[in-house]
C-alpha cells in the first residue's frame, strides 16, 4: 500500500495528538511488535468508535502495547483538540416565553449557545429542578442535551478512543435514563464526570461514586429508601446488573455458600442497609427537621433501619451507621468472585465477541481480581484482554450498534460531528437512546437486537442526511478525495472504499460502485449535481455494506 501525502500528514497529526496527551517514550522500539494492516484495522474497530486510516497507521507502527500505554492514560481531562471543539461548539436552544407554577415568568429564547450547563458543579445543576425559579423546561433538560452532543463529539474526535469506548461501556453498565426524572437529567454531567474519573481505575471506587451519585440514587429510587419495607430497587440492580450479575442469582432465600452468589434474602438485607442513603432535596426528614436542597449526597440516620443484617455472607451488626452498612454491602459486592467474572465477561463481550471466549474471560477475571483495590484495576483488566493473543486473532466481528455506526461513519468519512437534535431522534427510532435507555440493563451488547429492518432504516436515514448535506449529524465532504485522485468515477470509488473499509476494493466491488456513474463507466469524470449524486450513492452503498456494519 502506497502512503499518500495526505496519509503522511494524518500520521504526523495523529502522532502529535497522542504525544500531547501523555505518550510514553517507549513507542519507538515497540515498533518491533508492529501489526499487519488488517489486524490493526480490526483491533481499532474493536477498541474505538471506528477505525480511521490515520489511526490505523499509527497503531500499525507503534504496536498494540505502546498504543495502549497512550490510550490508558488516566487523566480525565479532554485532550486540547477535543476541548477546543467542545468550546467552539454551539447547540441550539429555543423556547417560548412562559411562567412557572408560582407565576414567575421567563422570556423566550432562540439562540445558538455554547456548551455551558455540562461544566457546572452538582449544586449549580441541582438548582435547575427548583420549580419556583423562572426557568423553562428546555433549560432543565439542557444539561442532558449538552451531554448527548458532547458524547458524539468526543466519540468521533478523541484520540484516546479506548477511553471514550469505556466511558460508553460504564454509562451502559451503570445505566440511568435521564428522561425518566428531571433530577437525573440535570445531574447527568455530574454523573459523567464520576464515570470519567474512574473509567480505568478501581472498580470499588467507581461503584461507590455511582452509589452516591444523585443520578443513580434518583433513577433507582434509593433516595426514597426509608424505614420498612425498604425500597429494593437499587439493591436488586446492584447485585443483578452492577456487580455479581444475573447468573449468580439464586432465587428465594440465599445460597448456603455465599461464594455461590446471592438470593432474595441478600437483596432484602441490602435494601435495608441502604435505608437513609439519599439526596439533599429539601425533603422533610422528621418533624421539623428538613434537609438542605443542594443535591448533595446525604446520609440520614433518621431513615435508617438499624437492625442486624446479613449480606453475601457478611454479618452487619445492629446499630451500624447507614454509611457503614451501605459501604459494607458495596465492599462485599465489589470483592465477590462472581463480580470479577461478570465484569470480565461484559468487557470481553464489548471488545471482542458476542460469544466471549471462556479462556479470555478467565484471563480478564484473574486480572480484575489480582488488581482489586488498585487505581489501575480496570486498566490492567483491559490490558490482559487486549494483549492476549486471542484478541487480535481473526474471528467473527461484532455488529456496530446505532451510536457506534454513526460515530464510525463520521470518523471514516473525516466529517466533523454536528450532533444536533435530529441525531438523537433518529438514533432513538433505531433503538439507541443515549443516556436514556429505560431499563437499568443499558443497551444490549449483542448483534441480535440491532439487526432488524427498522434499526437499519433509521441508521441509513441518519447517514443519508449527512451525505446530502442535511440533518444534524454532520456534512460529508463528498469531493474531498478528488484533490488527490482526481474526479474519475473509478478513482473516487476506490478512494472512498479505502477510507471507509481500510482496504482497496476488489474488482467486483469497484465495478458495483462504478455502476452508479453515468453510463456505468469507470473513466466517467464526475462533476456538478449529477457527480454529487453519484458520490452520495457510492458512500451510502459502502456504509450499507456488511463490511462496514461489522466492527
Amino acid at each position, binding site marked *: 500500500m502506497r502512503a499518500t501525502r495526505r496519509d503522511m500528514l494524518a500520521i504526523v497529526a495523529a502522532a502529535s495528538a497522542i504525544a500531547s496527551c501523555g505518550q510514553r517514550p517507549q513507542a519507538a522500539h515497540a515498533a518491533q511488535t508492529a501489526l499487519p494492516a488488517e489486524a490493526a484495522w480490526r483491533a481499532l474497530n474493536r477498541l474505538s468508535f471506528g477505525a480511521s486510516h490515520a489511526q490505523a497507521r499509527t497503531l500499525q507502527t507503534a504496536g498494540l502495547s505502546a498504543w495502549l500505554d497512550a490510550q490508558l492514560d488516566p487523566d480525565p481531562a479532554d485532550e486540547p483538540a477535543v476541548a477546543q471543539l467542545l468550546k467552539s461548539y454551539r447547540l441550539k436552544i429555543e423556547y417560548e416565553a412562559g411562567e412557572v407554577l408560582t407565576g414567575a415568568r421567563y422570556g423566550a429564547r432562540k439562540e445558538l449557545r455554547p456548551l455551558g450547563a455540562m461544566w457546572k458543579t452538582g449544586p449549580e445543576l441541582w438548582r435547575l429542578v427548583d420549580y419556583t425559579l423562572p426557568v423553562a423546561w428546555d433549560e432543565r433538560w439542557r444539561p442532558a442535551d449538552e451531554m448527548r452532543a458532547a458524547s458524539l463529539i468526543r466519540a468521533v474526535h478523541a484520540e484516546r478512543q479506548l477511553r471514550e469506548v469505556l466511558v460508553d461501556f460504564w454509562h451502559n453498565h451503570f445505566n440511568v435514563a435521564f428522561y425518566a426524572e428531571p433530577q437525573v437529567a440535570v445531574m447527568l454531567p455530574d454523573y459523567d464526570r464520576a464515570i470519567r474519573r474512574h473509567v480505568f481505575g478501581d472498580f470499588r471506587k467507581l461503584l461507590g461514586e455511582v452509589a452516591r451519585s444523585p443520578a443513580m440514587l434518583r433513577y433507582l429510587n434509593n433516595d426514597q429508601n426509608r424505614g420498612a419495607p425498604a425500597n429494593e430497587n437499587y439493591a436488586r440492580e446492584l447485585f443483578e446488573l452492577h456487580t455479581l450479575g444475573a447468573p449468580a442469582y439464586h432465587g428465594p432465600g440465599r445460597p448456603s455458600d455465599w461464594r455461590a452468589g446471592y438470593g432474595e434474602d441478600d437483596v432484602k438485607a441490602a435494601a435495608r442497609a441502604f435505608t437513609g442513603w439519599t439526596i439533599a432535596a429539601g425533603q422533610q426528614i422528621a418533624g421539623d427537621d428538613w434537609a438542605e436542597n443542594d443535591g448533595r449526597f446525604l446520609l440520614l440516620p433518621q431513615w435508617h433501619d438499624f437492625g442486624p443484617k446479613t449480606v453475601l455472607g457478611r454479618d452487619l451488626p445492629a446499630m451500624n451507621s447507614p454509611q457503614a452498612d451501605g459501604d459494607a454491602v458495596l465492599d462485599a459486592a465489589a470483592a465477590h468472585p462472581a463480580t470479577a467474572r461478570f465484569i470480565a465477561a461484559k468487557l470481553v463481550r464489548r471488545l471482542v465477541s458476542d460469544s466471549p471466549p471462556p479462556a479470555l474471560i478467565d484471563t480478564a477475571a484473574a486480572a480484575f481480581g489480582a488488581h482489586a483495590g488498585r487505581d489501575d484495576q480496570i486498566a490492567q483488566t483491559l490490558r490482559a484482554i487486549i494483549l492476549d493473543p486471542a484478541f487480535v486473532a481473526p474471528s467473527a466481528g461484532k455488529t456496530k450498534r446505532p451510536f457506534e455506526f454513526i460515530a464510525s461513519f463520521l470518523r471514516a468519512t473525516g466529517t466533523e460531528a454536528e450532533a444536533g437534535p435530529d441525531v438523537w431522534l433518529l438514533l432513538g427510532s433505531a433503538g439507541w437512546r443515549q443516556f436514556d435507555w429505560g431499563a437499568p440493563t443499558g443497551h444490549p451488547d449483542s448483534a441480535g437486537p440491532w*439487526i432488524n429492518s427498522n434499526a437499519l432504516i433509521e441508521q441509513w436515514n441518519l447517514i443519508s442526511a449527512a451525505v446530502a448535506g442535511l440533518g444534524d449529524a454532520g456534512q460529508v465532504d463528498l469531493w474531498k478525495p478528488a484533490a488527490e485522485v482526481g474526479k474519475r468515477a473509478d478513482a473516487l470509488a476506490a478512494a472512498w472504499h479505502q477510507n471507509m473499509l481500510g482496504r482497496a476494493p476488489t474488482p467486483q466491488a469497484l465495478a458495483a460502485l462504478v455502476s452508479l456513474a453515468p453510463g456505468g463507466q469507470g473513466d466517467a469524470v464526475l462533476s456538478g449535481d449529477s457527480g454529487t449524486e453519484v458520490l452520495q450513492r457510492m458512500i451510502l452503498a459502502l456504509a450499507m455494506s456488511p463490511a462496514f456494519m461489522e466492527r
Partner: protein
Amino acid sequence: MAADPILVLAFLRGGMDGLHLLGPVGDPLYAQLRPAELRAPADAIALPGGPAGADFRLHPKAQALGGLYAKGELAFIQGLGLTYATRSHFQAQEIIERGLDAPGATDAGWAARVFGPLGLEGLAPLAAVTTNMPVAWSGPVQPVVMPSFEDARIWYVDGPQHPLLALAGTAWRDGPAQGQAAVAKALAMTDFLTRLPRDGRGEVIAPPSRAGVTYPQGDIGARLRTAAHMLKTGMGARVVLVDLENWDTHARQNELFPDLIAGLSEGVAAFWADIGPQLQAHTTFIALSEFGRRVRANDSGGTDHGHGGLGFALGAGVAGGRIIGPWRGLDPAALFEGEDLPVGVDYRAVIGEYLERRWALSPALAFPGFAAHELGLFTA
C-alpha cells in the same frame, strides 16, 4: 382452527400493578395495605363475573376496558405470570419471551419458534411495534420492527426501484444470514412505502383511522395506532408484538399510573374500533406484564416488584365478560411468600390455549415441556 387468525400481543413492560387497575375492594386488607391513591376506589366500575366472593372494581380511568368487558368481548386474567420466583424485570421478561419456566438459554424466542416455520405470506406477517427487536422474535425469522408507520423507510430512496436498493441487496448476498434477511426486509419495506400516497412534503401518509376513532396522546396510543395500521394496509400482518412501556412505578405511582391506564384503556378501545368488524372477527388482542407488584405499598408512594399480575384478552375467540384465575384474597397466608399475589395462571397456559384453539398449533412448540391445563379462556 379459525380462518387466518391474527394475534396482537401487548407486553406491558415494567410490571403493571394489577391491584391498582382492578381492585378487590371487598377485601378489608386492600385498604389496610395500600393508601387510597394506590387503590381502585370503592365506587369504581363494578365488574360482575369475577371470582365468587370477591368484589373486583375497575379503576375509573379504565372505563373503556370496562365497556368491552360489559359487552362480553374482554376477559381479565387475575394472578397471571411466571411460576418461577423472580422479581427481576430483565429475568422475568427473558423467561417469558423465550417461552421457559425458569432461566435458561434457548436458540429462539417462543414466537419465532412457533410462527417462523409456518412460512406465512405477505410483506410483514411477523411484526413488532417497538424500537428494538423483542427477544420473543429472536431466532431465524425476520419480523418487521417499527415504532411508527411514518418513518419506516429509507429516506434517501425517493421512489421504487432506486439503484441503491439493488446495490445494497447485492452487497449483502454473501453477508451473514440474519443481516441478509434484515436488509432484504428493509429494502422491501422501503419499496412498499414509497408506493404509498404522500403528502405535500413528500412524507408517507399513514393510513387514516376509521371515522370517529381517536387515539389517546402519548406512546401507548401511538404504538396501538401503528399496530392497527399494520393490520389495515395490506402488509399481511398476522402476529404483531407491541411493547407498551413505563409500568415500573416504584415511586409517585399516584401521579403516573392513572395516565398510564387511561392511555392503555382508551388506546385498546381505539385500536379495536379502528380495525373494524371484518378484522375484529379474526383478531385476538392479549395483554400481559412480566409480573404484578407487591400488595403492600412501599414508603415512597409506589409499589415494588411482586409476583402474580393481571392481564386481559379481547376479541376473536375470547370468552369475555369474566375475570378468570383463582382468587384467595389478600391474607398473608394466601399470598406468595406472604406478600405477593400468587401466580394462579401460567402465562404459557394463556398463549398455549390461544395457539391451540385459534391456530390449531401445539402449545409444546412454543413452550417445550409445559403441561397445558384447560382455562376455557378461548374458543375455537
